[in-house]
């Protein structure tokens, strides 16, 4: 348990150090993710606890950004001024991204193989 947590923290710490030393503009935690990926590739063994710890963290992600979301109470001016534009942008961008991603995947995969399991009409 402690070993798994230590591995996550050390990867993040190394990510932050790389971020600061090299000026690589990726967030330290994202660099840490890539480092952990490299660790998983180079040190092959069973990792039940690590999977449990990261699974627990992912399952409880929501409450971790509540304090940040509450910070919106200080952004009232921006929201009343640009709220509509933000809403339009999020709706259009989300739908467009869904369509483009799915269509490109099918276009490229379709050239290489027949579609595997067919979905039922009406399901997602």
């Amino acid at each position, binding site marked *: 348990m402690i070993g798994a947590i230590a591995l996550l923290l050390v990867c*993040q710490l190394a*990510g932050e150090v790389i971020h600061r030393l090299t000026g690589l*503009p*990726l*967030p330290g*935690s*994202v660099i840490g*993710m890539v480092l*952990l*990926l490299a660790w*998983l*590739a180079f040190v092959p063994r069973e*990792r039940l606890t*690590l*999977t449990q*710890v*990261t699974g627990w*963290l*992912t399952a409880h*992600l*929501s*409450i*971790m*950004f*509540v*304090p*940040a*979301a*509450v*910070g*919106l*109470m200080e952004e009232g001016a921006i*929201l009343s001024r*640009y709220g*509509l*534009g*933000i*809403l*339009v*942008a*999020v709706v259009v*961008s*989300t739908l*467009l*991204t*869904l*369509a*483009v*991603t*799915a269509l*490109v*995947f*099918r276009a*490229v*995969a379709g050239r290489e193989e027949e*579609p595997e399991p067919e*979905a039922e009409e*009406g*399901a*997602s």
Partner: protein
Amino acid sequence: MSELVATPLLWLAVTLVVFEAADVLSRRSGRHPLCHPVLLATPVLIGVLLATKTPYSTYAGATQVLGFLLGPAVVGLAVPIWAQRATIRRLAKPLACALLAGAVTAIVSAVGIVWLFGAPVEIMASIAPRATTTPVGMAVAAQLGGIPALAAVIVLMSGVIGAMTATPLLNLLKIKDYRARGFAVGVSAHGFGAARAFQVDQTAGAFASLGMALNAVATATILSIVASLI
């Protein structure tokens, strides 16, 4: 009594209680995207802070530990990516093309539209990572000079909208391949999309998780390259 208010204990306890109540409501709603616990808990907590005249800085300081956990959680996204390495290798080409197309579409369309509305740079920086998972979105927004709180809410909105519209939209486009459907909803609507996809089909859910994790890296990378060029 007043020194108790200054410790993290009070606001951590309030946050957990409010969040747990919101989570119960969310479960009762059958996990409807509009009843996401963060969407329910945030306005209540803001109300409590306003009613007690507590400045946000006090609250933020007390609840710091929750935000701290986001870092290790992001690092941990490596685990699901690693678990799916066989799929990634098998479908490398369609996954890479769809990921790149989706990530660029999400950034350009979102930033372009708020730009048309005359929004300043900090809003464009906050909306640019809208398709990533929330902690990555907040970190990227902060890096670009955006507002992390705004980024968090924008990412949440993306998730709600994506989870609600994916099924009708993809049916309209006549896309039947669960891999394409799942991947698209993960790339466009991160964890919300993945949760929705798992309700429908296991394959769709697995591809949605993959889309979420890969797009966190893709969007962060694209935006940091863009930022270093500007």
